[in-house]
């Protein structure tokens, strides 16, 4: 079967793998297998990011998203956020465990000085300490919630993202998360559920994708290419430009050395593309995504 091609409509969201695959946590389900001390992919320097922001301006990018690994392991993440916010809206995907008063205060002052939004996504995979820490590591639950509360105190509205391991999960889980966040001082809780991508470390746990789990031409025809992040986003890493943040550690996801080389259609041949199809452009910002759930 030939995989259908997702066209590229133009760069709306520029993702930057700013911290490579280096992370202070080693979550059991991490789809790009980030880990402490990972040397698989180096971080990008502030200067490299500045050059990317120039390219983003040329391309008419709408927003910039920083990911890793853990972006706040980058020694110049605050400076990079400041550089970005003077020109673009930004989102930082973080585990929330490395936030300090000083760092968040500095980010808040950058955000107040910008006309654009600075969004944070904090990962928390269960509303109970025991369950979360089993997946994300001991102490991660308390530290992530402290990080989220710190952001709230400085006027940010972090989005807590939780991987939904079971599709038949009780929908009341949303209320449980919201209650937990309110108890921890987060006044306007925002919660977003993400599907499991059976890649990276998760592939070892769940066995990855079967051969039948692929996007077919008929499926693409039915819902259209807009729902795929790869129709309007690219990820820049120290190892080249990748089609989407999920395939950033997969050879099949590499689109070239430069952004310009990556502006082309992508064959939706990976098993993970079927997860994206079923759940929509899950990585996109709520405020810009167009998918109906």
């Amino acid at each position: 079967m030939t995989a259908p091609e997702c066209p590229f409509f133009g760069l709306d969201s520029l993702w930057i793998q700013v911290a490579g695959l280096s992370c202070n946590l080693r979550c059991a389900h991490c789809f790009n297998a980030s880990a402490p001390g990972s040397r698989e992919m180096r971080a990008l320097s502030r200067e490299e990011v500045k050059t990317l922001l120039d390219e983003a301006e040329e391309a008419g990018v709408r927003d910039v998203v920083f990911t890793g690994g853990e972006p706040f392991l980058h020694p110049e993440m605050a400076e990079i956020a400041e550089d970005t916010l003077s020109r673009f809206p930004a989102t930082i995907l973080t585990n929330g465990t490395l936030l300090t008063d000083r760092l968040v205060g500095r980010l808040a002052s950058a955000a107040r000085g910008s006309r654009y939004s600075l969004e944070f996504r904090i990962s928390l995979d269960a509303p109970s300490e025991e369950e979360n820490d089993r997946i994300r590591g001991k102490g991660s639950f308390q530290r992530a919630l402290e990080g989220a509360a710190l952001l709230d105190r400085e006027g940010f509205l972090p989005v807590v993202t939780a991987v939904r391991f079971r599709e038949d999960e009780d929908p009341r889980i949303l209320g449980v998360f919201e209650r937990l966040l309110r108890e921890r001082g987060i006044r306007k809780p925002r919660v977003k559920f993400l599907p499991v991508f059976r890649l990276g470390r998760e592939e070892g746990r769940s066995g990855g994708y079967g051969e039948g789990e692929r996007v077919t031409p008929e499926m693409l025809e039915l819902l259209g290419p807009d729902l795929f992040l790869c129709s309007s986003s690219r990820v820049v890493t120290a190892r080249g430009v990748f089609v989407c943040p999920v395939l950033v550690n997969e050879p099949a996801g590499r689109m070239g050395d430069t952004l310009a080389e990556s502006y082309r259609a992508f064959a939706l041949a990976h098993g993970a593309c079927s997860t994206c199809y079923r759940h929509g452009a899950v990585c996109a910002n709520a405020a810009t995504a167009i998918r109906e759930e």
Partner: protein
Amino acid sequence: MGRETTDRQDRGRANPRKVSGRVALFGGVYNNYLALAALLEDAPVRAGEIFCLGDVGAFGPHPDRSVEILRESGIPIVQGNYDRSVGLRRGDCTCGYTDPRDNHFAALSYAYTFRKTSERNKDFLAALPGEIRLLGPGGERILLCHGSPRRQNEFLWESLSPDPFLARLLDEARCDVLAVTHTGIPWKRRLPGGRLVVNVGAIGRPANDGRTDVWYAVLDLSGEKPDAAFLPLAYDHGRLAAEMRAEGIVEPFAETVETGWWTTCLEILPAKERARGKY
């Protein structure tokens, strides 16, 4: 998904209507026929021409009243996602929400509006153009659309619309002035080089600013460069809330009308816009 260009849009592009002086622009009526009636009193005093940027239905009571007022007024209307969905008898509003809570409330108001819109009015909404092109006195190419030039249901929020992105949208759509609605919160931006983007807000629901007034815009083409001003519009919001309750429309919508704070469809808001609201 709205990336196609319709014949009607091509016709408008080839032969845009000429405008000058002051032009009133409003959108997001959301069945608020009382605000619409107030607008029809207020706008003619302030502007020579009036255009509607779409979404006649949603949220408020008695959808046919707004459609009929608009039809009788002869005001040109750009089709919004709601108008398209209702007109084409679709199953949902295609508002573009991504959160289940947002979609829950969106589905309630869509079901109400769909049920209460007459077949004749549905046909009227289905036939509206996807965009309107105007030509200013200085040759400015003015584009009126609902969400964005490229997508009827794209949200253009102030805090998520950097200058280079807006410049790209204007380049692609070949216009110098872009006016949109869809988000419900008014804002404007002068781009380097002088081009102008205006989100005219909505007259159907307050702008999440704690005021019961709603907002529309007046585009001023009499100066050296086109500019826009936002005008608050007072109407009998107490009566609207009472009629909403009488129609069985859910309480959070009536609360918004009475307080000026959004109570639903909050998850779509970017951080800056949400931080300004109460919820």
